[in-house]
């Protein structure tokens, strides 16, 4: 067997993880090959060296950073929870509809026509209110005119000690 093939088996040989046949082949080769024997020693040295690497302690600074992660996450979650409260959903829905309407108005190609229609509707509404106001004024006038007659009628009522036969002076 060539050295290249034996090299592949050396690490497993050190861990006694070869089949009996592979083990015999490696041992037979090692008896005659100095280069593979050297490599075997270096693999052994590498393994020992790796196993002897110390484990470093975590710095105070890193520990502080790690401890602050959950609270930061929690704070963020609270603010999101507030925004996702079900009671705010109708407000968000209304805001969305309003935004759609505003964008529909702002970006509509026929914006001038919409403006004219709005103006016309506003004027119509305004004139309706004026008419209503005028009607209310005339109704107040009529009530004023009838007020005196009603008062005299009340004075002349028999029940209140008046004379019903006395005619109302007009």
């Amino acid at each position: 067997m060539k050295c290249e093939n034996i090299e592949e088996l050396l690490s497993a040989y050190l861990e006694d993880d070869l089949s009996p046949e592979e083990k015999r082949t490696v041992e037979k080769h090692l008896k005659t090959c100095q280069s593979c024997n050297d490599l075997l020693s270096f693999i052994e040295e590498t393994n020992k060296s790796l196993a002897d690497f110390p484990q470093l302690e975590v710095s105070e600074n890193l520990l502080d950073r790690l401890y602050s992660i959950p609270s930061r996450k929690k704070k963020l979650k609270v603010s999101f929870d507030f925004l996702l409260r079900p009671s705010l959903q109708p407000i968000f829905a209304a805001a969305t509809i309003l935004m759609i309407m505003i964008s529909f108005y702002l970006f509509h190609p026929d914006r001038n026509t919409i403006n004219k229609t709005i103006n016309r509707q506003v004027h119509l509404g305004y004139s309706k209110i004026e008419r209503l106001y005028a009607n209310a004024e005339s109704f107040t006038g009529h009530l004023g005119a009838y007020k005196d007659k009603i008062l005299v009628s009340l004075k002349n009522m028999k029940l209140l000690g008046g004379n019903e036969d006395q005619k109302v002076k007009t």
Partner: protein
Amino acid sequence: MIVNTYSKRIFNMAYQFTGTYEEAEDMTQDIFMKLYTSLTKYDFEKNFSAWLLTLAKNYLIDEYRRTKWEKKSRDNFNEHYLPSEAFESPEYGILKEETKKIIWEGINQLSSEVRMTVILRDIQGKKYEEIAEIMSLPLGTIKSRVNRGRLQLAKILKEKKERKNEM
């Protein structure tokens, strides 16, 4: 608490993988942030330690591929690793430290998958079965990667030492 139990393990794994202290600290923080956001996906029937190491392994390898770490140099070995105490003789201690330095720098020449497998097996001392679970790979593939990594490091060590002896 998760930080107390796992921070040292994750930080050392990140440091051995990246080779730079500051990056390892940043990576550890990123891994813990990822952990908190992924906790809802954790299956309670699975081994938590293996699950966390899988998450860390995935993050480190993804970052390695994204940022091309292999081109970066590692920290000087003695910058953070203090010399080991109590050797049989000072000469033996110096030789041992020299070997560690060569191996430490040699780790940079291993591919991300081989590097991670060697770290888990030979530095962190995990069993092959545990590594297979963490890496989600068959046992044979893990053993083959460990063998390849050790052989590559041993060849680097052999070359450096032979060159030194020639000088």
